[in-house]
């Protein structure tokens, strides 16, 4: 079997768009099921009373990461054809800092905000409008900050390359960190909920 299917030309662009909708449905379904359609639930992450965001995010990362590793090992998936986002260190750090403030203020992130909107949350719609404004602002500022935006390019670099560890060892380290995180998350939740 040759995966990624699209990269091997198993289907064309129109079918790819159909898959986009199907994959999107799955994405939206699990986001809503996790409770990410509610800004109050999402924001509890930052007050330690409900750490669902952390749990869901890291479980998803660990699942997909392990899946990639094992499918590649079984020869089903060619990892070199999976698009790794190139790293631009400083812009990504700064972007993350701005994004974090936006998260606490708005309560949603771009994906969860769509789920919130469609399930009737009015603050979700306003948040969506705000995001359009933010992207428009970025677009207008782009001629000024374009050079900085492309600064500190590191290419398609991965953590295993940086730490000089094998892919499998890096997977283990992240799984260990995630499991330790989940354990602490459960403890923290019980403690902060009792304080409240």
């Amino acid at each position: 079997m040759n995966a990624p299917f699209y990269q091997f030309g198993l289907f064309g662009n129109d079918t790819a768009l159909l898959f986009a909708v199907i994959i999107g449905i799955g994405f939206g379904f699990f986001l809503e099921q996790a409770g990410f359609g509610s800004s109050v639930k999402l924001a509890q992450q930052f007050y330690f009373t409900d750490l669902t965001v952390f749990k869901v995010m890291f479980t998803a990362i660990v699942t997909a990461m392990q899946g990639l590793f094992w499918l590649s090992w079984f020869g089903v998936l060619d990892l070199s054809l999976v698009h790794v986002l190139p790293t631009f260190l400083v812009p990504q750090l700064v972007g993350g800092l701005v994004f974090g403030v936006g998260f606490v203020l708005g309560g949603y992130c771009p994906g969860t905000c769509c789920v919130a909107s469609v399930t009737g949350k009015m603050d979700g719609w306003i948040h969506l409008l705000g995001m359009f404004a933010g992207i428009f602002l970025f677009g207008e500022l782009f001629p000024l900050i374009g050079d900085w935006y492309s600064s500190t390019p590191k290419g398609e670099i991965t953590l295993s390359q940086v730490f000089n560890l094998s892919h499998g060892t890096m997977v283990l380290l992240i799984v260990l960190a995630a499991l330790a995180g989940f354990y602490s998350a459960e403890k923290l939740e019980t403690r902060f909920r009792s304080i409240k």
Partner: protein
Amino acid sequence: MQTPKPYMNPYLAGIGLGLVLLAAFVVMGRGLGASGALSSFVTLGVNAVAPAHAQTNAFYKEYLGTPNGNPLNDWLVYEIAGVLIGGLISGLIAGRVRRTVDKGARITVSTRMIYAFGGGILMGLGSKIARGCTSGQALTGGALLSVGSWVFMIAVFASAYAVAYFFRKQWT
């Protein structure tokens, strides 16, 4: 109105989300995204109002696609359409679809709306500066062990925890 069903076990939801992400890798060779689709909509708007402006700006130009193509004819736009459908399906099944404003008990609706709009602006800016959001960077890049994505993720949590105290009234 029925009482909403409880949320899914977070670890199960995480596995479900991870498998959807994995499916995207296997089928397309790419991950998920959300902010990219929003950029396509913004570009569509700018192009409708001021086409010449959109053509000269490198950022909009990237989302315009082929010269006579439609900016909405994009994988992420279709994916986000799916997200809306999937979210609605889940919400209907669980009885969570209702018109409401989600906020803490200590603030008014209008304050919440101002915060939501302001947060949206920052989030739009931040996700564009970082080349992606929680879906495109944190989940996708996280699973691919991309350095920039992990830096982004750590920065998001760090800054959110740093400022959370000042906005506690909104949520608790």
